[in-house]
């Protein structure tokens, strides 16, 4: 493979609000049998029609096809770290559109959705086996929502013990995904943050200093996004337990450890898996997703309800009679169409396949690390660590920026000109200058990884030879580099076309002259 320039589709597609002609129709409906006009209560009739486009079905189709073609992502090579880019089996997409999945109403009688409940229950069993937890629930609509679920369960658990007012602190680390502190804060807890120390993770002494009778929970990931595994994690969970708190495992980075460890055996009381990443569900630009939340039998009474259960007669049902339940974090049972996809993925992989995926993810990361560190201008987080990394590593283009003034944003933009979508950088706060975090996982081939590294090397070289070329990138994208200042300016931001028309009327009038 050699780095070659590509060109993304460029359709010059107007905003849909500018399209269409009065009178055209994209969809029509049968005429009602009775006159509806009299059925609208006085004063509640809409007076002005919404200013929506009037387009034919064909024109709507073409418009959105054009838009779809202007998305690079996995059409090229996207090693988007922390998101675990996987193949999303299209068989599952086809299954998801079948009426036995798509046309199911969540309030249908249990007897009419036995297959779906069986899938949910059996997938629950698979996750229990992988984690050692006693019960999973799928109501949370994403990883962050599962973290929120944990904060809700924590409230319920301590309320039942009469300790809710006393235990008002949740401990997390500066490297934990922002959803951990953010959901803890939303749930009303005080947040205590542990900082990273020399070996790449917070010290056990910092944890000890943070623990107290006020501690409700620890919310932590492991390994972190730098590929560093905390070897003291069992001591951590034991200390949290001693202090009377709950230990929650944000298993966002499960891909490198699956098939080797179990959250419960490490002493965690609860954990979370993201089915839209580790278990092959599609990203969809950010959901519909599922944060599968699992916990110990001790916490299970507090889970959101209902739970899918297997009855003694072998049938499946919904258990809504759970007096200690914290209620709901979202309506109904969750994104069960994504649970279905995750179940299909897990069945296609099996225990051996899942372990092999972890093997390949860790192999790919270390292979990539060797290649990336050979590129002048690339640094690595925790440079002193000598061990092999887990499934991802955080790098930085600090040296390149020092040398050329061009950092990871400019480099990422230029990489897209070669068909490589810009990498994930880092969650806030940045602890590595000019960070980027690629993750190859088990999906991407050696050739893909080689190409990715080659493109990065090429762009770093361009940054030295022709910095203006990189600074003004991308050049082969659907549009030129956007102005990201206007969206931060109250006078100019516009999240809707109506706001844009109002705020930019003068500008547009000038342009029209």
């Amino acid at each position, binding site marked *: 493979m050699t780095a070659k320039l590509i060109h993304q589709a460029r359709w010059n597609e107007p905003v849909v609000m500018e399209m269409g002609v009065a009178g055209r129709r994209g969809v029509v409906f049968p005429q009602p049998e009775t006159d509806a006009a009299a059925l609208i209560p006085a004063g509640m009739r809409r007076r002005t029609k919404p200013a929506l486009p009037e387009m034919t079905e064909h024109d709507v189709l073409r418009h959105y096809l054009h838009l779809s073609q202007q998305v690079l992502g996995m059409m090229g090579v996207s090693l988007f770290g922390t998101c675990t880019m996987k193949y999303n089996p299209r068989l599952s997409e086809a299954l998801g559109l079948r009426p036995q999945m798509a046309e199911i109403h969540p309030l249908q009688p249990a007897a009419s959705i036995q297959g779906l409940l069986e899938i949910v229950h059996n997938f629950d069993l698979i996750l229990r086996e992988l984690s050692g937890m006693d019960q999973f629930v799928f109501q949370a609509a994403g990883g962050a929502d599962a973290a929120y679920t944990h904060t809700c369960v924590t409230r319920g658990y301590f309320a039942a013990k009469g300790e809710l007012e006393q235990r008002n602190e949740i401990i997390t680390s*500066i490297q934990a995904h922002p959803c951990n*502190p953010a959901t803890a*804060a939303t749930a009303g*807890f*005080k*947040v*205590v*943050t*542990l*900082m*990273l*120390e*020399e070996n790449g993770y*917070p*010290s056990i*002494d*910092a*944890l*000890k*200093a*943070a623990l107290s009778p006020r501690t409700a929970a620890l919310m932590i990931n492991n390994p972190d996004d730098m590929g560093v595994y905390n070897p003291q994690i069992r001591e951590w969970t034991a200390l949290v337990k001693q202090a009377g708190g709950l230990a929650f495992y944000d298993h966002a980075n499960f891909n490198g450890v699956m098939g080797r460890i179990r959250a419960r055996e490490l002493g965690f009381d609860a954990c979370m898996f993201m089915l839209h990443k580790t278990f092959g569900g599609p990203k969809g630009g950010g959901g519909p997703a599922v944060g599968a939340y699992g916990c110990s039998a001790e916490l299970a009474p507090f889970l959101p309800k209902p739970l899918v259960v297997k009855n003694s007669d072998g049938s499946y049902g919904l258990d809504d009679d759970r007096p200690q339940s914290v209620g709901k974090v979202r309506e109904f049972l969750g994104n069960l169409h994504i649970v279905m996809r995750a179940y299909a993925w897990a069945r296609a992989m099996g225990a051996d396949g899942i372990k092999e995926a972890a093997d390949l993810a860790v192999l790919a990361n270390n292979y990539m690390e060797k290649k990336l560190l050979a590129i002048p201008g690339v640094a690595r987080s925790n440079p002193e660590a000598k061990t092999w990394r887990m499934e991802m590593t955080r790098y930085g283009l600090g040296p390149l*920026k*020092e*040398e050329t*003034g061009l950092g990871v*944003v400019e480099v990422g933009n230029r990489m897209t000109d070669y068909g490589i979508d810009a990498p*994930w*950088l*880092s*969650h*806030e*706060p*940045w*602890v590595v200058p000019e960070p980027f975090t690629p993750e190859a996982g088990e999906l991407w081939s050696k050739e893909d990884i080689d190409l990715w590294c080659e493109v990065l090397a090429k762009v770093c070289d361009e940054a030295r030879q022709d910095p203006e070329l990189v600074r003004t990138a991308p050049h082969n994208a659907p549009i030129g580099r956007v102005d*990201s*200042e206007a*969206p*931060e300016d109250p006078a100019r931001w516009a999240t809707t076309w109506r706001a844009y028309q109002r705020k930019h009327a003068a500008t547009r009038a000038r342009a029209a002259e």
Partner: protein
Amino acid sequence: MQRLGVIVNPIAGMGGRVGLKGTDGPAILARARELGAEPVSGARAARALAELRRLGPAVLAAPGSMGEQACAAAGLACEVVETGEATGAAATRAAARAMLGGGVDLLIFAGGDGTARDVLAEVGTQLPILGIPTGVKMHSAVFAQNPAAAGRVAAAFLEGRAATQEAEVMDLDEDALRQGRVSARLHGVARVPQERALMQAGKSGAAIPDEAALEALARRMVTEMQPGRLYLLGCGTTMRRIKRALGFAGTLMGVDVALDGRLLAADVTEAQILRLLDQAPATAILGVTGGQGFLLGRGNQQFSPAVLRRLGRENLVVVAGQQKLAALDPACLHVDTGEAALDAELAGYIAIRTAPDRSAMLRIAA
């Protein structure tokens, strides 16, 4: 067109290479020259200014080695300001004055803490300033990480891509330093361009969240203060937020004491604190100096060993923004009370308050 002022302290940094802890004053400079020190500041300034070439800003420079030459080396045309017969610090101040009068939008200077102090003394917060780090001592928060970064931040500011924020200008007492004692003090606050950190998701501008969090925290802390208890409020901008939340302007560079929601004593000395401690229980609230992460012994020597022993570690409350803490490398704090034994007693983990209901655990290094 945007106007840029350029001042280079040509001798800044010369002391460092030859083991002197600064280059302040003609005697030290002569000693540095004797030891074979070479000027480094001009070349580093030119490196920074090269980043601005593509913008072609209107430049007002100090004469000769004080800016004009660096501009030429960087390929920037400039107009030269008059500084008369002045040399050294006086020349820096004269140039800064001229630039303030000349209507520049940003004053970029090459030097160290001493240069920063001189510039600050003239322009205060009337004009944004930015330091190209070329000195020996750089405890002030007005310096970019390196010369190229300084040039880029300046470019971003001139292009309207950077806001400004307050930054503390610190300087060590060089006499004390050469005698083996570290003693620093806060000389004031400057306005410094801050390139908005780029966020992943949209690569859109990110705000600096510490500001709002610390404002809210200051208000919260005021509501938490107990009647009859003394609150010793340390130096710096973070402490000033609490002072303002209490309703008084406060001493930026000194320790103020509050009691029952009012200012009891401003800019107190160690002796005054000790006398007050006889009268009521007390809590000391401290900020963290950026970059180095010092809690004690940098600009707040009023918190002497005697005061600290009277207070006890449990009555020290530390406040700092999370971004500031995250930028510490390594993530630990330092104390330098002048007594090694007390420093050792203070060592260990401490919860730093970062916002209302938020804290971070950091180690005070032994």
